[in-house]
């Protein structure tokens, strides 16, 4: 809020009326560390008289204690609100600040410059209308400038203000400014999908061209930052797009009302309009539209509404109501752009949770096509994505979803990836297009079922999955178990880690990505064995919870028996039947589980065998006992 408007004291009612009609502009400040993002925001708040006495006096005392500007006010302290930020003098997470001018109301997200906190920068960028990208005039365009510009453009920000900052430290040199602007334009035209770049020479610290035109840059004839913010055009492009509303929640207060609630993602809708429900493709007609507590005849993008339809069609959360004449598509396989946000790298083959608008699914990462070097914009071959890396990757989902490409519709094409175990948000993704191959491969239905094959063998198919360190005794127990089952007349098959790697998996190594693929294939083979009605015994180190879980989900719930052969590392190492531990210790074998690669202990195995107190024979009996329950 600006505290300068005359109207406040003379005619508060009129002031409120004008204020009420202001539009909202959301923007971010981004750029490299120490380019002055927080300082710029602090300066804008200060110069637009947004700071109150108590905040100012606190800022003055904080500046003396913690500031980096000597005896001057350190405006960065206004936004760096976390204790750790103030102590270290850096920005860790996005801060949201609010102010308004006579024309507009602003929400500004001040984003961190450190590469480590890129995920927090992306958080701020994803909701921004425009971006202010700061560049320190002394250093020019840096890797982080490019990274932030790339992410800004990737999430769909079309207008950028390039603030060339700290001009006071280069004697307000027009030459330095021109050089930086030229370099940035060259980078942007090659790499970014940005419609308009507006450069402004500033000193956030001294206040040059922030709110008021500076006398230090007589050669600059353009707008100040505040003038730009007041005048930049932001049209709501979503209004002109076809109608889409993701159904968030079904409102059923009584048997005679059944409403579908959601936020309109794009377009507009009127009572009587024809819609389609995707996935599925059923058609219906809008009967009523409710916003807040009243009925309306029309609603548009950005409004939260509740809709009723004129028939009893089945609609639930995750369905999308779309314009019948301009529907979206549905698919379960896509090419996507992914920004990875977690310490644990992204592994093709691994499963994560997918969440877009209101749709959730189980996602399996396909092959990584390449990653993008944000500095050189080269496409580099890559097997995995590390934190803060961006890559092009295929994904497949366990169900069909409604979608548009992200470039056409952000709500319909943006998604997040969630870790199945920690529930952390570990990546963001944008749908480019659907892969049509799944359309052309149809599931062939067979007349003889798994059940009939199993019945013929008078048994129930099972997958007995042994996991444990190398040398823990998995194979010995598996061997005895199979002999026992065989003598009981059961039809069995054993898949063994070493044997599989001699055949179908001989192209795979032992790095984490290959280990994930190894287990994925084994899981699929085991699934086929169970389809054949067999009892399948799988014996693999299978060190990651993720892949064991994937194997478990490939078969039916009661078919999977996880046997954790729990032998302590020092015991395995002492036994060292194959001499592998000695080699691993001497560094001859890299990525050896237990030595140089982790083993994630199963959390809830069906059976745990402590081989220090249980013989292989007893272990096999224990499994058969569990089995025949």
């Amino acid at each position, binding site marked *: 809020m600006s505290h300068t408007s005359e109207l406040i004291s003379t005619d508060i009612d009129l002031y409120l009326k004008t204020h009420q009609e202001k539009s909202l502009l959301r923007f971010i400040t981004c750029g490299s560390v120490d380019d002055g993002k927080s300082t710029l925001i602090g300066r804008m708040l200060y110069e637009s008289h947004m700071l109150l006495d108590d905040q100012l006096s606190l800022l003055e005392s904080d500046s003396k204690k913690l500031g980096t500007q000597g005896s001057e006010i350190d405006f960065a302290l206004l936004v760096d609100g976390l204790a750790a930020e103030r102590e270290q003098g850096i920005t860790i997470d996005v*801060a949201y600040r*609010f102010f308004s001018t006579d024309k507009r109301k602003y929400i500004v997200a001040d984003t961190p410059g450190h590469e480590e906190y890129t995920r927090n920068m992306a*958080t701020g960028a994803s909701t921004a209308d425009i971006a202010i990208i700061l560049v320190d005039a002394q250093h020019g365009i840096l890797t982080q400038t490019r990274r932030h510009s790339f992410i800004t453009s990737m999430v769909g920000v079309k207008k950028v203000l390039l603030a060339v900052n700290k001009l006071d430290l280069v004697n307000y040199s027009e030459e330095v400014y021109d050089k930086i602007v030229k370099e940035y334009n060259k980078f942007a035209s090659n790499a970014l999908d940005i419609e308009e770049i507006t450069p402004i020479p500033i000193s956030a610290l001294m206040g040059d061209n922030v709110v008021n035109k500076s006398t230090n840059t007589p050669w600059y004839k353009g707008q100040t930052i505040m003038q730009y913010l007041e005048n930049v055009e932001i049209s709501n492009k979503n209004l002109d797009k076809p109608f889409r509303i993701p159904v968030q929640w079904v409102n059923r*207060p009584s048997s005679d009302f059944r409403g579908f609630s959601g936020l309109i993602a794009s377009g507009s809708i009127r009572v009587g309009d024809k819609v389609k429900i995707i996935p599925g493709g059923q058609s219906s007609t809008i009967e009523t539209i409710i916003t807040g507590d009243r009925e309306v005849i029309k609603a548009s993008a950005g409004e939260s509404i509740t809709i009723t339809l004129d028939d009893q069609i089945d609609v639930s959360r995750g369905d999308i109501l779309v314009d019948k004449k301009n529907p979206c598509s549905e698919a379960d396989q896509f090419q996507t752009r992914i920004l990875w946000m977690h310490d644990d790298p992204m592994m093709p083959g691994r499963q994560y949770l997918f969440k877009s608008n209101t749709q959730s699914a189980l996602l399996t990462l396909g092959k990584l096509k390449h990653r993008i070097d944000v500095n050189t914009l080269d496409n580099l071959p890559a097997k995995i994505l590390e934190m803060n890396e961006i890559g092009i990757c295929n994904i497949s989902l366990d169900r069909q979803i409604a979608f548009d490409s992200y470039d056409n519709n952000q709500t319909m094409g943006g998604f997040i990836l969630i870790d199945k175990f920690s529930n952390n948000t570990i990546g963001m993704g944008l749908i480019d297009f659907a892969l049509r191959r799944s359309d052309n491969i149809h599931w062939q239905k067979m007349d003889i079922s798994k059940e009939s094959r199993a019945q013929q063998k008078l048994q129930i198919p099972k997958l007995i999955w042994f996991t444990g360190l190398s040398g823990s005794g998995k194979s010995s127990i598996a061997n005895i178990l199979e002999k026992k089952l065989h003598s009981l007349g059961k039809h069995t098959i054993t898949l063994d880690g070493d044997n599989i790697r001699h055949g179908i998996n001989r192209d795979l190594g032992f790095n984490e990505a290959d280990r994930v693929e190894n287990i994925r294939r084994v899981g699929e083979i085991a699934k086929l064995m169970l389809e054949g009605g067999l009892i399948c015994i799988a014996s693999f180190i299978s060190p990651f919870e993720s892949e064991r879980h994937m194997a478990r989900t490939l078969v039916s719930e009661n078919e999977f028996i996880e046997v954790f052969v729990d032998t302590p590392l020092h015991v395995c190492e002492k036994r060292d039947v194959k001499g592998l531990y000695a080699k691993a210790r001497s560094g001859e074998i890299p990525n050896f589980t237990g030595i140089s690669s982790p083993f994630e202990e199963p959390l809830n195995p069906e059976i745990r065998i402590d081989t220090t107190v249980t013989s292989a024979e007893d272990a096999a009996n224990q499994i058969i006992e569990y089995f025949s329950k």
Partner: protein
Amino acid sequence: MNHLATLEAEAIHIMREVVASAENPVMLYSVGKDSSVMLHLAKKAFFPGKIPFPLMHIDTMWKFSEMIQFRDKTAKDLDLDLIVHINPEGKKLGINPFIHGSSKHTNIMKTEGLKQAMDKYKFDVAFGGARRDEEKSRAKERIFSFRTSEHRWDPKNQRPELWNIFNSNINKGESIRVFPLSNWTELDIWQYIHLENIPIVPLYFSKERPIVDRDGTLILVDDDRLPLLNGEIPLLKSVRFRTLGCYPLSGAVESKANSLPEIIQEMLMTTTSERQDRIIDHDGNASMEKKKQEGYF
């Protein structure tokens, strides 16, 4: 759409997202103006249905008596499912801001009380009315703010929050605090109350009230539990409150404003921020962040 309509649509979207994904949500109802707005938005979000979750007030036994009256009337008028929780141990110990200090009182009656109630009723999501413009650590908090099973907030390790896709997944025992008013400012709240005719506690409007002046903080003599100092005589002053909490910890401001436009006018022309009247924020640097980490709302 103007900015208030945008903020309203966003808050309603957030509330529906919680109801669609949470097992057992609750709305923290503090009886203040922000809670009044939140309640109003909830009515709209689920219309024509009833609000599909209970409201919970963590009572410290030192709230203004007018707040309690307003709370009970609101619950009755709107037919709300209202839970009132008072920390029983605090009650037994007779925790008192005068004897035990503001910090201990707030910690035991509010923070501990809230954690107890969350565990007791096994709520997995709690709505709070906090706004990002209130305080610097709030400005950093996500809309869906994750809490460990010990109710702790880890400000250095927040989940990324992309677009308006909210990750509501949690493991058993963990919880999420959700702030639908994150992007509202104090002015937005007042203006919305004005436009939508939302009922608020009369303490926000100026009236002659018995006051004692303690080092510049004007304390309302709300009941006879307020210990008067030597020679201290309550004086009738025309005052109102910008924030409401425990009466011994909420300073009044001298004012003549008794309509919403006048309140807004006064707010816009004032030179101090609203939380200055709140005594707990001044307990130490970064005190709000510390309190929040420990589970304060």
